[in-house]
């Protein structure tokens, strides 16, 4: 009665493996076995099918001449270039939509999220309607809608001019621009270096303040490094900052920066759609900061901007950043809908390649590889940022 309460565990046939471990091993072998069998089955079918259709596998086709036209690209391209270069151009086009889209969607979404919390009833209602309508209609439908609207715009001769120098027509949006060559790049480079130096100095200033509690103003450094230094470089080298105004000559525009209708429609659709989701994230983030924090900050007599920057935002960001990451990823992945309106992003170019060469597996794996890389890059960066701002407990 007492002796067998604490009997040592029975040694099983498999030595150290108890019945639970054995069961676990069985399940793992079973699941992995099934997965391997499925992959082998698909692989052998694919090999047979490819040889039956006389398709050679491999990425050798990337070196061949692509021969496809790319209307709107960031990098220089002509149809004599290789498929590899066409893909690179496609990736650049995808990034051009994604990066600018993310920046604009964040700004617009934040504005709308804050508007939803406004004390002004009309503003908060309008923001709510905006969010609700845009969230409940498929992005592809919105994209087609914007594209149709772009095509219905007047011809170049009768273009709309909302502001002097800005033209909106069925050729797209044309903006005045400053042509950037190497002298201008030198100035911009100085500004970037100045920003980097400023961040290092600011960290040092904050560390000093942490030590002795004396606040040290950072703005003189900012002014010197980010404004005065590049301005000095610009003056020293006599860099021309000439704005190039677009003008209508014949049937088309000359000069300025042209956003093609496809690009512009895609950008509008992605930005407005994503901004509706970002607005909700921003709103819930701000609402997650307890009222007491606002009250406590005002009781201390802090200025409103200081209060927002140092007390409210750091707490709201903890709630905002993780879902924001998914929205950035979604926007990037959604840019693949470009294929529906003929903006040549990486998906669209891969699709054309697939139709021209029949290299389906290679083309689709290239798409997937590109997006997996971008996704991992964005999540890596956002996770790093998130870890930086996360609540440090114990």
């Amino acid at each position: 009665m007492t002796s067998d309460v604490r009997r040592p565990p029975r040694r099983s046939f498999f030595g150290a493996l108890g019945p639970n471990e054995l069961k676990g091993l069985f399940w793992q072998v079973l699941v992995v076995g099934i997965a391997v069998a499925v992959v082998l089955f698909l692989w052998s079918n694919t090999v047979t099918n490819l040889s039956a259709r006389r398709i050679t596998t491999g990425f050798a086709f990337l070196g061949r001449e692509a021969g496809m036209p790319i209307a709107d690209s960031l990098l220089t391209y002509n149809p004599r270039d290789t498929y590899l270069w066409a893909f690179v151009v496609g990736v650049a086009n995808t990034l051009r939509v994604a990066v600018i889209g993310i920046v604009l969607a964040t700004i617009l979404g934040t504005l709308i999220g804050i508007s939803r919390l406004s004390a002004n009833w009309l503003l908060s209602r309008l923001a709510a309607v905006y969010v609700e309508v845009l969230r409940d209609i498929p992005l592809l439908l919105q994209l087609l809608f914007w594209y149709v609207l772009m095509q219905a715009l007047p011809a170049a001769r009768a273009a709309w001019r909302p502001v002097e120098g800005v033209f909106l027509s069925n050729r797209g949006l044309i903006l005045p621009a400053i042509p950037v060559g190497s002298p201008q790049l030198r100035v911009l480079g100085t500004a970037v270096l100045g920003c980097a130096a400023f961040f290092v100095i600011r960290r040092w200033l904050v560390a000093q303040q942490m030590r002795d509690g004396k606040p040290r103003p950072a703005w003189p450094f900012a002014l010197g490094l980010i404004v005065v230094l590049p301005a000095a470089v610009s003056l020293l080298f006599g860099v021309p900052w000439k704005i190039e105004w677009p003008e209508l000559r014949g049937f088309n525009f000359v000069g300025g920066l042209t956003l093609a209708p496809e690009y512009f429609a895609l950008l509008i659709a992605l930005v407005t759609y994503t901004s509706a989701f970002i607005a909700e994230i921003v709103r819930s983030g701000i609402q997650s900061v307890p009222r007491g924090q606002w009250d406590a900050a005002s009781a201390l007599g802090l200025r409103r901007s200081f209060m927002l920057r140092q007390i409210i935002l750091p707490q709201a960001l903890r709630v905002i950043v993780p879902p924001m990451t998914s929205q950035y990823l979604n926007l990037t992945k959604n840019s693949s809908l470009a294929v529906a309106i003929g903006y040549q992003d990486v998906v669209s170019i891969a699709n054309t390649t697939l139709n021209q060469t029949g290299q389906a597996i290679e083309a689709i794996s290239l798409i997937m590889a590109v997006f997996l890389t971008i996704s991992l890059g964005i999540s890596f960066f956002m996770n790093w940022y998130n870890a930086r701002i996360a609540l440090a407990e114990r």
Partner: protein
Amino acid sequence: MTVITGMPDVPRAARRPQIGNPVLRWLRANLFSSIPNGILTLVLLAVLAKGVIGFAQWGIANAVLLTPANDSAACKAVRGLGACWAIIPEKYRFILFGTYPFDEQWRPALSVVLFIALFYLSTRRALWRRELGFIWIGALALISVLMWGGVFGLSFVSQDRWGGLPVTLILATFGLAFGFPLGILVALGRRSKLPAIRSLSVLYVELIRGVPLVSLLFMASVMFPLFMPAGFNIDKLLRAQIAIILFAGAYLAEVIRGGLQAVPRGQYEAADALGLSYWRKHRLVVLPQAIRHVIPPLVNTFIAFFKDTSLVLIIGIFDLLTTAKTAIIDPAWQQFSVEVYIFVAAIYFAFCFAMSRYSRSLEATSRR
């Protein structure tokens, strides 16, 4: 006995004096609380009025509501000034049902009604019992009979003639019906102690979530035939359906995983103490609680997923968006695509808005 009134515990004197017309008071508090706020209100009102008047002029005052069949002359006359709603009565049967045989279109129409009834029943909390599963199986079987026919005197209609709203509802519903159990399995796999199963689940979820749905659909339409033995050919709609199920599975798995993490450890331990097996523990104790935790995000995933079925347009499947896009290829009506898109957007909106309202009401009741 004292009667408890709904008054909050605030001293009466601290409240603002309640004088004046209630309407004016409301206006003052909500629209004109300060001078900048008042200016903002006026600007917004002006913009809103301009927008509403512009839309009313285009959509109502100058619009053409009906024209003789196949005649878009009246619409062309008001082009640019007014909407051509006449395209909707002209094309709605095609937009809603695609190329389904014209005389048989009551069958997809009835299927749509059945789908809506099924969704409605699924939102009733009182019905969240095992019987609901049987209702689902029965209704889906009935819908299959209606759509395909070939029995009970209904003529057979092959899958490539299906189109429009029923296809959208089929893709979404079957995607959920199969994606949900798949998602549960993957979520359990991701939290499993067995390293091989865990890494397979992680690989699956991250792979599917890291790439756009478009690439999965391309894979289904272009690569799937290469994967299968020669002579084994499955329908394009079914291939897209498989891609959508795999896609839904990965996203639902992450939501369910969140729910599983929210179930307190004590619940697992109590189930273990009762000597329940792994599957019984999850089926009887863990999953019911986990899923209850994540119903609002689940509904949000459903909405996202319902909208995403429209992407099958890219591989040429005739869902609601594709039929809409096809309807305006007709040269006579080509210029009136905005009206058709608004019509289709309203249908999508109705479904998604109903779901999001429902999700919000669930959140409100679960918070209590």
